[in-house]
């Protein structure tokens, strides 16, 4: 089929969905489930798992049709970790039962996911993690502490990496799990961040029991699975094929258009430089996506995330300066536990502060530069004393 024929076919499928489940009268969740079952959730996923095995780019045809029909969406901002990280990992490494069990409620947003990777002693050096998973027959018993866990307080499930074999060198002895956040051994405590809110948390795991059927990938293969997740995370944060002036540049450009009184020659020059960079970054992301077609993200995704973080920070900084006196005020420092991770929401002060996290979360910009230098350019790796030493013998 040509692209046009595929698009026609998709439009027909959307029309059938809309005819059978009129969004105006159908319950939201029921509609989303029907959309998933019709293969129109994410068309690049396989049939039976919310997709039709089509190129990723064809999704825009579906989205446009559904938007025209005023159909409800799955509130992607509320379930970003599930969509961007858990789902691709489950798809790539999960068993058939796991895919069937988890993907549908993940996509519809019935079940929110969080990511239990970072620990107090293992951030950039994720492979140093110390949370232990000990096998006990058909279950694993997990003990340890995770940190910086975004929206853990809303999550039903987590993707979790834990140490299953401390006698192996650090990259070898890890295993990847799906962890039930309702387990009595899970204790989620808010961690307040510089915006005033507690978007992320500390998560203490005490004798958490995970059935072996919730293991993702082989025992000891956790690092490889986790790398798959992180590549997807970087694309999810930095990539995408959004239209021109999406995200932070759109917010600042709007301010510029609506408020002639804030304009000065110096800020105009900065605005136009950043507009150029943001638009070039968008095209670079689009080019990357065309390259990936439906394949897996590689280290190039790191480049997108790197640029995205810098631009968000510069743009949100510029916005505060544009606002001048008004930029001295902040909306609200009250500690809340938000349901969604917002990069461009709330007020300019919030955006400025939240953007600081963009160069830390999902791999710091320094670490991303190491990745590009080593994996794309083939430059020598960082010096490491700890690579071949059993994890239990490492200095801590």
């Amino acid at each position, binding site marked *: 089929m040509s692209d046009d024929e595929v698009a026609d076919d998709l439009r027909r499928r959307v029309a059938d969905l809309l005819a059978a489940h009129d969004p105006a009268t159908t319950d939201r969740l029921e509609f989303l489930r029907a959309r998933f079952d019709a293969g129109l959730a994410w068309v690049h996923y396989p049939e039976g798992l919310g997709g039709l095995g089509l190129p990723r780019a064809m999704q*825009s045809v579906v989205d446009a049709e559904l938007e025209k029909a005023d159909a409800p969406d799955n509130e992607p901002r509320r379930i970003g970790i599930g969509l961007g990280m858990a789902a691709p990992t489950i798809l790539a490494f999960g068993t058939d039962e796991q895919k069937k069990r988890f993907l549908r409620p993940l996509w519809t947003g019935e079940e929110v996911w969080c990511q239990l990777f970072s620990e107090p002693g293992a951030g950039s050096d994720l492979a140093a993690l110390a949370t232990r998973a000990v096998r006990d027959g058909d279950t694993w018993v997990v003990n340890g502490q995770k940190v910086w866990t975004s929206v853990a307080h809303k999550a039903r499930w987590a993707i979790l990496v834990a140490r299953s074999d401390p006698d192996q060198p650090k990259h070898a002895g890890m295993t990847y799990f799906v962890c039930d956040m309702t387990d009595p051994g899970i204790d989620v405590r808010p961690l307040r961040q510089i915006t005033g809110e507690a978007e992320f948390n500390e998560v203490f795991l005490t004798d958490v029991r995970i059935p072996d059927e919730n293991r993702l990938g082989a025992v000891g293969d956790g690092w490889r699975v986790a790398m798959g997740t992180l590549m997807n995370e970087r694309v999810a944060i930095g990539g995408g094929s959004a*239209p*021109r*002036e999406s995200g932070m540049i759109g917010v600042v*450009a709007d301010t*510029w*258009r609506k408020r002639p009184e804030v*304009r000065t*020659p110096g800020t*105009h*020059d900065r*605005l*136009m*430089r950043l*507009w*150029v*960079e943001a*638009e*070039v*970054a968008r*095209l*670079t992301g*689009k*080019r990357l996506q*065309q*390259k990936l077609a439906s394949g897996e993200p590689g280290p*190039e995704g790191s*480049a997108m995330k*790197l*640029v995205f973080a810098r631009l968000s920070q510069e743009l949100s900084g510029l916005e505060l300066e544009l606002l001048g006196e008004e930029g001295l005020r902040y909306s609200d420092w009250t500690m809340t536990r938000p349901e969604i991770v917002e990069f461009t929401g709330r007020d300019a002060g919030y955006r400025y502060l939240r953007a600081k996290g963009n160069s830390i979360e999902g791999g710091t910009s*320094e670490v*991303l*530069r*190491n990745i*590009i*230098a*080593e994996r*794309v*350019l*083939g*430059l*020598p*790796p*960082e*010096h490491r004393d700890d690579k071949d030493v059993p994890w239990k013998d490492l200095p801590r």
Partner: protein
Amino acid sequence: MNQSTQSRETSADVNLLYTDVEDSLRDSVRSLLADRCPADRVIAAYDGDHDLGAELWPTLATDLGLAGLLVPEDMGGQGASAREAAVVLEELGRFAAPVPFLTSAVIATSIALRARETELVRKLAAGTATAALAVPFSSGAATFGSDVLRTEEDVLRGSVANVAGAHDADILFVPVPTEAGFEVHLVDVSEVTMTSVVSLDMTRRLADIEFMDAPCEVLIDATDGAAAVRDALELGAALLASEQVGVAEWCLESTVAYLKERRQFGRIVGGFQAIKHRLADLWVEVESARAAARYAAATAADGDPDRRVATSLAQAYCSGAAVHAAEECVQLHGGIGMTWEHPAHLYLKRAKADQLAFGTAEGHRATLAGLVDLQA
């Protein structure tokens, strides 16, 4: 929908990758240049030896058909689009090749095509004639002008400085302001006085041209002259971005290769993190420039309504990226990067001159501000 919001829309399905046809064209240009365009001979241009360009261009123009790349097949050309021309320019940039592809086969040829001068187009396509647009190389589409006037005796009088490609040309296309607008005249180079300029980039030599009662012939009349020149310069600017990508790519690749070999302090220098991070950032910049240049080439090829945004965007970004890559290349080669013998300076000079060509980055940002409704 008003015009400004319209110009914020982009073309969703523009292909930003290289097609198989483009890749195979690249291969043939690259292998020819690898063979015939060694850096030491390119450097010789700075000492007054211009033989390389004179040998190289006929081969590229006719053997590879590059002179007629953008000319339709029924006029003796290859019938290719701006996308293919962009790929050729990437390669010419990688070698800092001293040939008039951009000035004759792209810019001047677009004017001849616009004039529907079939015989002239055929000659250009066959490489039996080479042409140049007689404007300063720095002229941007938004700002070009001309002091050359047509007298009552129907001859041209005046001068133009810093014209690129004139040394290689037999024919000049000269914008001439009249009361009704710009005309474009055809002038034979034998009728003008041409003085070589010692230019920053001797791989694209410039000339000062004086018209002292030069016989002329109207190629495009005042109804379309200004638009023709503007479109030609815009096409030049759109495709120069690909040359800049080629320059930047060479600089990055050669620097990475050198730093994988070079040892100091008992280590490979490319293993120092300060160096790795600079090179990683440069790689991101080069890949970003590539996306911008591809978008400019693709929209120029399709006559896409977004092409003016794409062109100014590409120039605003790629011109600086090429300069940055060349400057990093010199710095990260250490002393050897400062030598006459090492080719790094060819790219530095090309990149810096290109940055000033067809309007500055600042000028293009001003153009963009108007196009996307972000006025000062």
